[in-house]
């Protein structure tokens, strides 16, 4: 086990080096998004590609910077443990995504 990893396990939070690495990955993904945007031959495939890259950035910030990866505060409901902070946030996120797709469907965004 490396020293960095053992510190992570001990404190429950990543080290500054991990934060820096995540920032570099975020920067690279943003640069890829920018570069891909100007590649014309990709066509409509750009939409799923950019979506995946955006979700990756979103997840990195939520997991490492907002520390949900290290969320150990659980709440026991009917004998089963749930990470409460993740539950609160992801719950809002799921409802939000539902609202977005419901509104888009309602206003015929997908059918034109």
């Amino acid at each position, binding site marked *: 086990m490396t020293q960095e990893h053992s510190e992570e396990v001990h404190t429950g939070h990543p080290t500054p080096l991990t934060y820096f690495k995540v920032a570099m990955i975020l920067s690279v993904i943003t640069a890829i998004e920018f570069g891909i945007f100007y590649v014309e031959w990709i066509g409509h495939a750009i939409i799923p590609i950019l979506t995946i890259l955006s979700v990756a950035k979103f997840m990195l910030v939520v997991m490492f910077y907002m520390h949900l990866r290290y969320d150990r505060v*659980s709440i026991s409901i009917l004998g089963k443990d749930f990470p409460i902070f993740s539950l609160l946030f992801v719950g809002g996120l799921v409802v939000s995504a539902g609202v977005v797709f419901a509104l888009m469907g309602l206003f015929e965004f997908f059918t034109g």
Partner: protein
Amino acid sequence: MAQATVHGEHEPTTTGLNHRKMLMWAFLGSDCMFFGTLIATYLVYKNRSIAGPMPEDVFSIPVTTVSTFVLLMSSMSMVLAYAALTRNSMKTFRIWLASTAILGMTFVGFQVFEFTVFANHEVVVKCADVGVVELTSVERKVAEKCGTADEHDGKVEETVGLTPRTNLFGSTFFTLTGFHGAHVSLGIVWLLSLFFLSFKKGGVTPEKNLDVDLAALYWHFVDIVWIVIFTVVYLFGVFPGF
């Protein structure tokens, strides 16, 4: 029946969990819904504007990419400020916190610049290009002046600014990005308050790191909202057919 299984260092609560942190996560969950409705409204109305300018007329992807990078780096400096505080390094904490506030102000500066450019958007069309080069809807409208007294040196020009009152795209775009900018501005005030409070004895201490933890959660949240806005509003916005 819900029962907490982990106890942190905080006052006793009925759930056994820290209520301030619970409240912050519940707020962030609800704010997801708030921005979700604004993004959905933008998408629904984007292509329903009768008159321009449209996204492809005004957006500058290189400028927005730089402002996105600035906000991402502010998230890194915020998390490093929190890490420094938990290690009892107050000087490093203040440096990173001030950096975060400065990066946040830079981002807001980019937004003000962008809004100003959009409001004063000028369209210049070479009359020789009409029928040869593919023109946007706004350019086609300005090109109608070709052959009239408004044509000078083979060109026609007109200021076609984008404001919240111009069209549906403008209304929904400024509402969405304006609310995000307001969130960032509020975050800057919060960070600066913590920065100045850290000079007061007992104001910000490693033992009371939850005060900074909550501000950091809020700051990262405005960052992830921008990650979505950058892709959905800007990159998809300029892509034809979306």
